[in-house]
């Protein structure tokens, strides 16, 4: 049972990284990115192809960098588009990446996928056994990314991103370069998504194009919405809840014997949907919404604002 929970925890870590990135792009900066899965796939493939030659750490760094560079490139091309149009461009990007991976066999091994991806600390992991080392690595990675992104959210950069999200025109009028800031937010998000892809590749040790379907993007949005848009803590709770829903429903059929497994697997996806609808009805602001920051919080000595 514990090993199963560890597997789930690792999958939550991957989902949490993707979610954190989306939370920066969409939650904090207000940039809709429906091509999340494309960036994750790029990270995963860069890692899978480079790790056997360069070692896992440089491969992971390059995965993040490649994903960030492509994010920035896509942002430069499309970010002046209004919200809905940006969504369409990013959907297109996600599909392009998937099709490129599937069809450019000389680089990605096409539909056959890449097997035998080396894991970080593989020797140590073998010695201790199980996924103990890997879960520690995954949790550490999430912790580092969380701390960095949380620091970023509290920094002036984070503040100005939220300002852009709430009203880009006003922010622009205050002398901020909205365009450059948006590109930067997109690039940082891309880097984190690439890292998430690396973690995914390390864990599964085998990747193929069928793992990078738009459902990954959908789960990331669910996690952000469930947790509360803009809140990193909320995101972590959201990612856990979504995974609990996804995996928890697996156990239903071990209890409910009236319904047969085939029907239940269809019902299961329905239940997940119903769970999310319920969550949105009962708690539209998310499980742990972004706290409202007031001027008084930033300027504690300023009595006049109280």
């Amino acid at each position, binding site marked *: *049972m*514990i*090993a*199963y929970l560890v*597997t*789930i925890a690792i*999958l939550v870590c991957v989902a949490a990284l993707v979610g954190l990135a989306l939370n920066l792009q969409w939650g904090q900066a207000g940039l809709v990115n429906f091509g999340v899965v494309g960036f994750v796939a790029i990270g995963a493939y860069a890692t899978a192809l480079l790790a056997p030659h360069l070692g896992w750490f440089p491969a992971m760094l390059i995965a993040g960098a490649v994903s960030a560079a492509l994010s920035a490139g896509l942002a430069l091309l499309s970010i002046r588009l209004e919200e809905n149009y940006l969504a369409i461009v990013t959907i297109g990007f996600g599909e392009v990446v998937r*099709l490129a991976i*599937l*069809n450019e*066999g000389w680089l990605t091994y*096409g*539909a*056959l*996928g890449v*097997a*035998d991806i080396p894991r970080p600390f593989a020797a140590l992991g073998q010695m201790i056994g199980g996924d103990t080392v890997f879960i520690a690595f995954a949790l550490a990675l999430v912790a580092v990314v969380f701390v960095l992104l949380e620091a970023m959210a509290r920094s002036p950069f984070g503040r100005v991103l939220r300002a852009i999200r709430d009203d880009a025109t006003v922010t622009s009028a205050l002398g901020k370069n909205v365009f450059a800031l948006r590109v930067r937010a997109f690039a940082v998000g891309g880097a984190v998504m690439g890292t998430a892809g690396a973690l*995914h590749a390390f864990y*599964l*040790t*085998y*990747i*193929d*194009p*069928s*793992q990078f*379907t738009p*459902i990954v993007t959908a789960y990331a949005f669910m996690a952000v919405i469930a947790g509360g848009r803009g809140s990193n803590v909320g995101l972590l709770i959201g990612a856990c*809840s979504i995974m*609990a*829903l996804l*995996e*928890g429903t*697996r*156990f*239903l059929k*071990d*209890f409910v014997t009236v319904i047969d*497994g*085939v029907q239940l*697997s*269809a019902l*299961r*996806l329905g239940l997940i949907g119903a*769970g999310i609808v319920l*969550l949105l009805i*009962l*708690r539209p602001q998310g*499980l*742990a919404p972004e*706290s409202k920051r007031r001027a008084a919080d930033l300027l504690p000595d300023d009595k006049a604002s109280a």
Partner: protein
Amino acid sequence: MTDNSFVVNRRTVLAGVGSLPLVAALGKPAIAQGAAGDVPLGMVLPFSGATGSYGPAMKQAAELVISKVNGAGGILGGRQVKLFIEDSETSATASVAASKKLLEVNKVELVGGFWGSPEALAAKPIILAANKVQMLSCAANAVTEGDTKGLIYRLQAKSSQWGPAGAKVMDKIGAKKVTVLAQQNPFIVAMVEPFKEEMKKIGGEVLDIVMYNPDQASYRAEVEKAFGPEPDAVFVLPLLTDMVSISKEIFRGGFNSKVVSLGTGADAEGKFLQAVGPEVAEGIYHLQPAPPIDSPSYARFVKDMGAPEGAVFLFAGNAWDQMCITVLAMEHAKTQEAAVWTKSIREVCNPPGEAVDDIVEALKMVREGKSINFNGAGCTCDFDEKGDSLNRSFYVQLIKDGKNTPFGVVS
């Protein structure tokens, strides 16, 4: 920072959401052990996603075996076999979580099923790490390559066996100039090169290879490209959903080239004919690894599955065999320990030994200490040292007047 109503609200909702997995967790210990002494087996089958249509028949077949075995008194001195089935969602990631659940929560000795190669490849390392047996119904060569610890068995033909078989069908129908129309998927991609080589050997020529992506909205461009050069025949390598669209596109285009396809798409245990109707399906040849069509136990199996006489069950037959082989090997090794009974698999499956195809009968013979050679519903169940099945012959059918009619056997 927050007012009171917020705090109350959050608790209520958190409690609600939090209780979901908790409810599941509470009952787990009871499930893990099952009723005292049950032998747990697991399967990962597709019930949702692109290949979801193949799962239900496999489940039905596996459960048939289990109920027969349990009905005849179980194995290992009267212990019942308990089968746990998980949905692979046609996704490698979901298949890893599902396999892990089966291994760790249900403590299964076998993780079988595995319709798709990506699912099997992703689950392979964790099943091997747990020292349990993995049985496959998928074709990608890579699964049985590398170190398998002698724990992996494939009930299906390998991709590299499907390709040459296709070329032999081309030879039989007199097609020399052919094109290939193939889906980008690991099972299929791996058969294209062996097909080309075999075509060269028999003096044929492959004019063009057209690949398409799964889940396309339309296949018109690809179909026109493949049929455009007016080849003698087109080797169409699909799965069910895309073959349904492609065959309609071929019908609409009115092309004269013959169509040779795979049982995975143009039969799919009868689902293809149900989906497109007789007119569209007319004249399509399809091949799949041959089940022992003439054996009485196969006829019984088809009847048990509630299918018309002569139906060819490719994947359901595999699921059936996976269960049979597992319980036989356990009975032979007198233990449920996977690392031990895996060594018995060739003992009960490969010749020499008395040929037997009824599972209850076979179990009885194993108990009496007789040497047996089990033949299954999907194949003869003989394995080489890598765990791939031996003596694969392919059964070719031609769709005529809305029916699959036997055309021949190639090997």
